[in-house]
């Protein structure tokens, strides 16, 4: 089969979407405190590892359209195990594209548990969650399951419109993040410690830029026609643009200053909101949708302080809230030229009801399933680090690395008293040199690679 332009675009789009996950690493990494920046970035990176493998082995089978499925919830994990038995020449392209979605959805969750999640638990959690939560939801919405036109929900109400993942990706990741926070608890000093503020806003803006760039592949990758591709591209520009201005307006009038972090966050909120709707709303609809999402998320990120759940990097405020806005807004704004019409276009409330119910269903499904996965992991092996490790910083205590040279400004803190805890080794004694020779040599510092920094800090 010849490699047509459409398939080439799918290849490129897949690479764009995969690039979003390292982009997310920067977006999140800049938003944490300096001593956990590497761990934050690693949680995104390692999701490519764990979910990438899982998707090749059985994930793709579970989400691919298949008669052999479990109550329209997920397909037989072994039907294409290891990607065998595919017949259509383009099948592997589609699997690759779908894999990148699974990866970033899992990576998105990590922002909720910054600074304190245990890395080993995260590595175990991610492929299990992708298997039991992501793949089923992807099958239900995109693979011919429950919410599709042949599924029970699609027959009873209306097939859910979720072009690129409002329910599957964003509501899903947002609610999973919230459940993880409730299971593993808040950071020490949540809401009081000023060191919880972001340490590198330029990283955040770089990450937002990479995300936006990749999002054109995310939304437009599955475009079927020229008209649809053009509409999706424009909507993926217009909605985040409006959302950025919406978020900045909230900040200007509420806090007095429009901030860089607000601009970057607004862009992501707008991208989240347009994701399910990108092929079904007009460009003007996208602007309206983006503006609502930007304002809603800007207002929602403060809720965690009111309710006391430490969703550290606002996965709930940005992805759940804007994901719900985008998913439900389709019920109002869907244009008849692209499919079923929304309420504002004379289509009645059928689609609106279907969209709202699908949002509610995915919230309940993901909440229950995430709890079932995370709670045993937390009980059996612990999903968070010890208090000492948290104080030292998860970069040093979990990875024996630090992102920066600490010490000068006092924000990194001295690691010396905790040397033994980090490395499991005694701190070396300083060699007593004869008087007159002013140089002292720490012995242990040269021998052990791990903990060297703490020796010399």
């Amino acid at each position, binding site marked *: 089969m010849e490699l047509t332009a459409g398939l080439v675009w799918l290849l490129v789009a897949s690479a764009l979407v995969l690039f979003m996950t390292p982009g997310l690493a920067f977006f999140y990494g800049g938003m944490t405190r300096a001593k956990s920046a590497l761990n934050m970035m690693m949680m995104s990176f390692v999701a490519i590892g764990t979910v990438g493998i899982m998707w090749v082995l059985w994930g793709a089978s579970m989400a691919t359209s298949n008669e052999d499925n479990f109550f329209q919830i997920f397909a037989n994990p072994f039907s294409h195990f290891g990607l065998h038995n595919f017949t259509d020449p383009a099948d592997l392209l589609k699997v690759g594209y779908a894999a990148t979605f699974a990866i970033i959805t899992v990576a998105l969750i990590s922002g909720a548990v910054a600074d304190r999640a245990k890395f080993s638990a995260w590595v175990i959690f991610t492929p299990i969650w992708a298997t039991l939560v992501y793949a089923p939801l992807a099958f239900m919405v995109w693979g011919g399951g429950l919410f599709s036109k042949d599924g029970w929900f699609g027959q009873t109400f209306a097939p859910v419109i979720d072009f690129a993942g409002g329910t599957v990706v964003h509501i899903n990741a947002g609610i999973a993040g919230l459940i993880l926070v409730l299971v593993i608890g808040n950071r020490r000093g949540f809401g009081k410690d000023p060191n*919880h503020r972001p340490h590198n806003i330029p990283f955040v803006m770089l990450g937002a830029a990479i995300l936006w760039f990749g999002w054109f592949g995310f939304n437009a990758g599955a475009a079927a026609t020229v008209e649809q591709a053009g509409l999706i591209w424009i909507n993926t520009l217009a909605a985040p643009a409006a959302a950025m201005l919406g978020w900045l307006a909230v900040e200007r009038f509420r*806090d007095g200053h429009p901030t860089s972090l607000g601009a970057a966050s607004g862009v992501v909120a707008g991208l989240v909101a347009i994701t399910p709707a990108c092929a079904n709303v007009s460009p003007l609809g996208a602007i309206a949708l983006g503006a609502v999402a930007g304002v809603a998320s800007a207002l929602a990120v403060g809720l965690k302080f009111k309710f006391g759940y430490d969703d550290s990097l606002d996965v709930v405020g940005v992805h759940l809230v804007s994901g719900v806005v985008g998913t439900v807004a389709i019920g109002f704004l869907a244009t008849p030229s692209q499919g079923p019409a929304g309420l504002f276009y004379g289509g009645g409330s059928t689609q609106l009801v279907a969209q709202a119910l699908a949002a509610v269903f995915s919230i309940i499904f993901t909440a229950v399933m995430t709890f079932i996965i995370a709670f045993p992991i937390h009980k059996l092996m612990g999903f968070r680090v010890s208090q000492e490790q948290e104080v030292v910083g998860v970069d040093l205590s979990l990875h024996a690395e630090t992102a920066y040279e600490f010490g000068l400004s006092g924000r990194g803190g001295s690691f010396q008293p905790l040397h033994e805890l980090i490395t499991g080794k005694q701190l070396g004694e300083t060699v007593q040199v004869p008087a007159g020779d002013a140089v002292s040599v720490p012995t242990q510092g040269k021998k052990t690679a791990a903990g060297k920094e703490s020796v010399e800090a």
Partner: protein
Amino acid sequence: MKLITAIVRPEKLDAIREGLEAYGVQGLTVSAASGYGRQRGYTEVYRGAEYNVDLLPKIRVEVLATDEQADDILDVIIASSNTGRAGDGKVWTMDVFEAVRVRTGERGAAAI
């Protein structure tokens, strides 16, 4: 000999350097510092949440001087870094027992 140490606003570094150069000071050492005095900290806002930051960025300027010059240099630093608002910083002098120019081995006032 005296060591003059000034902990002042970072943005005043250029004014201090120009003032000291005009007075005839040959060298100085600058390092980054952080801390607070009566002005306490300041507030940063991220995603609508306020964070009270206690430790403000400051610079520490250190100058070696002869006993005769020390008071003048103190005045130069004060004049060039004063804004009249809380947070201007502190300057102090200390006695120095000995100073040696590493390259030549000159000692005392000759090393300054």
